[in-house]
């Protein structure tokens, strides 16, 4: 058994952690674009019902002083936001009618 990445209360989400606990938007966007809808739907279905609980868990800490497992849980929430567009709206990984357009996020808040 490898080391746990998420807080114990969210251990059922461990299988998603290596792929979706990503610190930057660039990584999360890239993961979304290269993931299958099936993978994202599975992640979404597993995590969405517990999203509110995860927010409450993260809210117990100061943003600039979060334990690493809580930080990763917050990153997992960011990834849930990221996949919510493919899953809830587009039914495909990429934005329709966006073709070759891109928009790089160069500066973003940490965490």
């Amino acid at each position, binding site marked *: 058994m490898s080391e746990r990445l998420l807080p114990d209360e969210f251990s059922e989400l461990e299988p998603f952690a290596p792929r979706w606990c990503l610190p930057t*938007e660039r990584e999360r*966007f890239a993961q979304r674009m290269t993931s299958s809808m099936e993978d994202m739907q599975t992640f979404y279905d597993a995590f*969405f019902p517990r*999203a*509110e609980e995860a*927010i409450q868990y*993260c*809210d117990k*800490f100061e*943003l600039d002083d*979060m334990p690493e497992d809580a930080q990763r849980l*917050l990153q997992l*929430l*960011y990834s*849930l*936001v*990221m996949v*919510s*567009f493919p899953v*809830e*709206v*587009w039914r495909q990984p990429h*934005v*329709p*009618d*966006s*073709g*070759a*357009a*891109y*928009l*790089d*996020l*160069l*500066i*973003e*808040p940490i*965490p």
Partner: protein
Amino acid sequence: MARIEKPPEGSWTAHYPELGTGPVSYEDSISPEIYELEREAIFKRSWLNVGRAEQLPRKGSYFTKELAVANTSIVVVRGMDGEVRAFHNICRHRGNKLVWTDFPGEETSGSCRQFVCKYHGWKYEVDGACSFVQQEGEFFDLDKSDYGLVPVHCDVWSGFIFVNLEHEPRQWLRDFLGPMTTAIEGYPFDLQTERFSYRAVVHANWKLFIDAFQEFYHAPVLHARQSPVAALPEVQAAGFEALHYQLDGPHRLVTTTVGEGWRMPPEMLKPMETVTRSGLFGPWDAPDLGPDPLPAGVNPADRKHWGLDSFQVWPNFVILIWERGWYLTYHYWPTSHNAHVFEGNLYFVPPKNARERLAQEMAAVTFKEYALQDGNTLEATQTMLESRVVTAFPLNDQEILCRHLHKVAADWVDGYTRERAEVGAR
């Protein structure tokens, strides 16, 4: 029948009769010759916003800005006296670019006590004075005080740093910005320091992207699939009407409502919007922006259901203030007649906790989903405009700001060519 009252002349466009109502040529967006004139007539004569004061937090903080449209690069720096100054980014010795990291064409930022040229080690104080010349004795009658960095006119308004590349600017910055824009002075931009900074190269003329974000006539169509509300037949049929349009010299304003997610039933929202209490229009729970009322220039027509003001500051800068207590800026930096660099910056009050941070993430991710659709449409427009199969385009009353932008651009080019002709005739 319009739902929103228009000016007594019957339309927003007729309220500004100099605009006319005829079809508009987009030759200014496809002609390399007009672009060359715009560089001289517009970008070398206007005050250009290059950043925010918060990007220079300390004495010695600096950033560079590539201004390809004006054939230069500048370095903007906070001096030891606290003043913000700008200089052309060139070493006085043999013309090397002074401040850069690894790639000369890429912008950089940091903090230093002196600028040191990578080539021969000449040094400059952050106020521009040349302070050290390598092997000074080898030169001939060289006086360091004659070799300071070449200054660029620089001024700060409401924390926004502007430069002007003219030898002597025709107007002070405040006069250039005009009464409509300066009336938002006092808005707490300085409290909103949490920043998401986006950038893209767009293969379309700079004015085409400004057009895309200064009319919302497209929104119910292009973005129809983005939300259940937008897809409603009655919403589609009603289309878009702005609350207010206003012109002030070369500058423009549009005020609109927004989708008030916090008043909508969940079935009208994305599930993730309900969880994060956020979406395209920002976090639903507005932050504390202090006790003072917002300045009169915000929601200038004092409209009920005010959702946002989009200040289109001539020539290439947008400040968009949201009713929910955040703002964003756009910049469009031309690189050729059919390409430009787009920059979008989202600014929020720093979040107090993870919930607020997540709401900001939701707003930022949603922003990008929309912007990708907008950006892609532009290349499709550019290529077909270049076919010149059609050369005149009808603009409706909700596109008044597009009409104004192209007229102002033409007026500035005309003014420049007239001046040149007069100089030549003398």
